[in-house]
């Protein structure tokens, strides 16, 4: 019997693994998937989503979204909420790339204007936004400035001529999460991060020029709420996180918590699930440091937006304001945040872990920016560089079912090593260019690893979440130019 056959069908796209599946499960696990996606899920997802269900203080369910795949600790695509009084916080439920996330930027440019200049745009972005192994950004900041960024994120950028006043209001949490404490961040993490602001990194990170794709899907009414008013409107998508700064914070606290678990003889099925009570000193210290990394990541994506504005201005000889280069939204997809949710009829403060999962708050929620509050929060689902991405909408059903959460991307079906065996980077680059996608990559190996063939069908992932009602389709976005880390 394959691992996924232990799941019982709850609805068309919801599957449940009961607590009887594994000793120690405190809640059932729930997976969002079509039958096809479920069958294609690797064994690591089942193992990991049920491991998470064993953690103390978990509320309702351990979730795996439709893009779930084998990660470390939590599955990628995992969501779990814990009581703030009696529950835990786990760095493995956030990931090393704290506040890895997506930013979607609209323009008023049309495909016909951008197509003849796409090479120029991508080449310039490739130069302005460093990508690849060990890259450093051109922005020179001091240690006190880094401390401010840890606390104020996008707000610091706007005050330092790296953004516009209204940018922050279109970012999750208004561009910074409260509670960042630089004193809880080790100097080594600061050394790693201080020169990396405004850089893309590598792996699956990218900076992509896209066009609204009505052939795949477009709800014109909803799209217009986000400023997408033309069928061939050009947007820019940014996917990156907190760089070495966040990676080091996670590394440091994972070592601390791993030691504490051994000291107190607490067993977990995966050392990456090392945890501490959220209310403990260690839990509060990790949270404060993690918030610093999250705010750094918000600032990183903001600085990249600034470079996008510079690049478009340079290419089109126009001010960015005149091209309406504005943030549609910016979402975290590797994060733990304190949020209030209704559980069994009462409101409770929970520490919600989303690892490769996106917040999907519905209409009327006070955390949704005012211009979007009547319809719901924009949700950005990043696809592979070959197949495109989606803009979705948060829903009330997500608030009721998944602590306001949905998927974050396509989800891999093939390892990096396997992808490299199957695809040659240089050939892929040429083939993509023939299909109208101009790519600049830091390395050809990295490009091959991110080939579309290594990912699930994003449309099926998005459709699953749409059918489930935890995020609704707004617009499909087709890549035309890509800077690959």
């Amino acid at each position, binding site marked *: 019997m394959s691992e996924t056959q232990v799941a019982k069908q709850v609805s068309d796209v919801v599957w449940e693994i009961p607590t009887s599946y594994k000793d120690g499960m405190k809640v059932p696990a729930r997976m969002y998937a079509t039958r096809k996606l479920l069958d294609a899920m*690797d064994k*690591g997802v089942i193992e990991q989503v049920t491991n998470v269900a064993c953690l103390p203080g978990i509320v309702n369910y351990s979730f795996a979204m439709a893009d779930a*795949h*084998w*990660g*470390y*600790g939590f599955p*990628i695509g995992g969501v779990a909420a814990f009581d703030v009084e009696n529950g835990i916080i786990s760095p*493995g439920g956030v*990931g*090393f*790339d704290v506040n890895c996330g997506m930013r979607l930027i609209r323009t008023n440019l049309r495909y016909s204007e951008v197509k003849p200049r796409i090479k120029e745009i991508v080449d310039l972005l490739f130069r302005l936004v460093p990508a*690849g*192994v*060990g*890259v*450093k950004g051109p922005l020179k900041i001091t240690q006190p400035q880094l401390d401010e960024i840890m606390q104020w994120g996008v707000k610091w950028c706007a005050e330092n001529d790296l953004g516009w006043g209204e940018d922050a209001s279109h970012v999750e949490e208004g561009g910074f999460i409260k509670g960042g404490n630089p004193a809880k961040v080790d100097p*080594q993490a600061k*050394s*790693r991060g201080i020169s*990396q602001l405004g850089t893309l*990194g*590598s*792996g*699956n990170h990218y900076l992509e020029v896209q066009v609204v794709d009505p052939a795949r899907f477009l709800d014109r009414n909803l799209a217009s709420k986000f400023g997408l008013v033309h069928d061939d409107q050009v947007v820019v998508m940014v996917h990156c996180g907190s760089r*070495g700064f966040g*990676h*080091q914070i*996670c*590394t440091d606290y*994972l*070592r601390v918590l*791993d*030691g504490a678990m051994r000291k107190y003889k607490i067993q977990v099925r*995966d*050392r*990456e699930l*090392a945890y501490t009570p959220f209310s403990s000193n260690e839990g509060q210290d990790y949270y404060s440091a993690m918030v610093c990394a999250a705010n750094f990541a918000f600032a990183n994506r903001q600085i990249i937006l600034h470079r996008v504005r510079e690049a478009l201005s340079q290419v089109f000889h126009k001010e960015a304001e005149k091209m309406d280069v504005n943030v549609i939204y910016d979402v975290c997809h590797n994060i733990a945040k304190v949020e209030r949710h209704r559980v069994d009829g009462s409101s409770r403060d929970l520490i919600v872990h989303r690892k490769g999962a996106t917040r999907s708050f519905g209409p009327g929620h006070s955390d949704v920016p005012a211009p979007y509050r009547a319809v719901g929060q924009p949700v950005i689902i990043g696809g592979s560089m070959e197949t495109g991405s989606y803009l979705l909408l948060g829903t009330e059903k997500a608030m009721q079912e998944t602590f306001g959460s949905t998927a974050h991307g396509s989800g*891999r*079906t*093939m*390892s*990096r*090593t*396997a992808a490299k*065996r199957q695809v040659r980077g240089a050939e892929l680059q040429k083939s993509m260019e023939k299909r109208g996608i101009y790519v600049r990559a*830091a*390395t050809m*190996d*990295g490009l091959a*690893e991110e080939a579309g063939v290594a990912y699930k069908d994003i449309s099926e992932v998005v459709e699953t979440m749409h059918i489930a009602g935890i995020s609704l389709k707004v617009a499909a976005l087709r890549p035309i130019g890509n800077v690959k*880390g």
Partner: protein
Amino acid sequence: MVRSSFRFLPDIALADIAFLAKGETLETLFEASARALTEVMVDRRSVSAGTLKILEIKSDTVDGLLYDLLSELIVLKDVDSLLFKTFAVSISKDKTRLTCRAKGGTIDRERNRLRNDVKAVTMHLFGVKKTKGGFEATVVLDI
């Protein structure tokens, strides 16, 4: 000649990169692990060996020594832009202290055949095991 080797594990943690390192001794296991980590970031044949860096690491466990050594190499890549070609590791008798003499050079984007920017060493499946032929370690790197 004391032998050591590593191989990548393609079916573990799909978005990341895992390897299994082996060594007849703990020292050679650690050297193989450091080489495997570096090969994920760069083709080591393209790295110069002109700079010597001596790393001193302390930990109360063997796992901790390996985790901290690999993590330190990632930090050096980001902070000092250093990638290494060779590693010579010695470990104290009580297995709580390690010295690694790493020879490498500053990242050269023209000369180095760069690969992935490793974010971190995860604890998923992580550990050093004693085997019939010596020692082995499974390591999953976050990419």
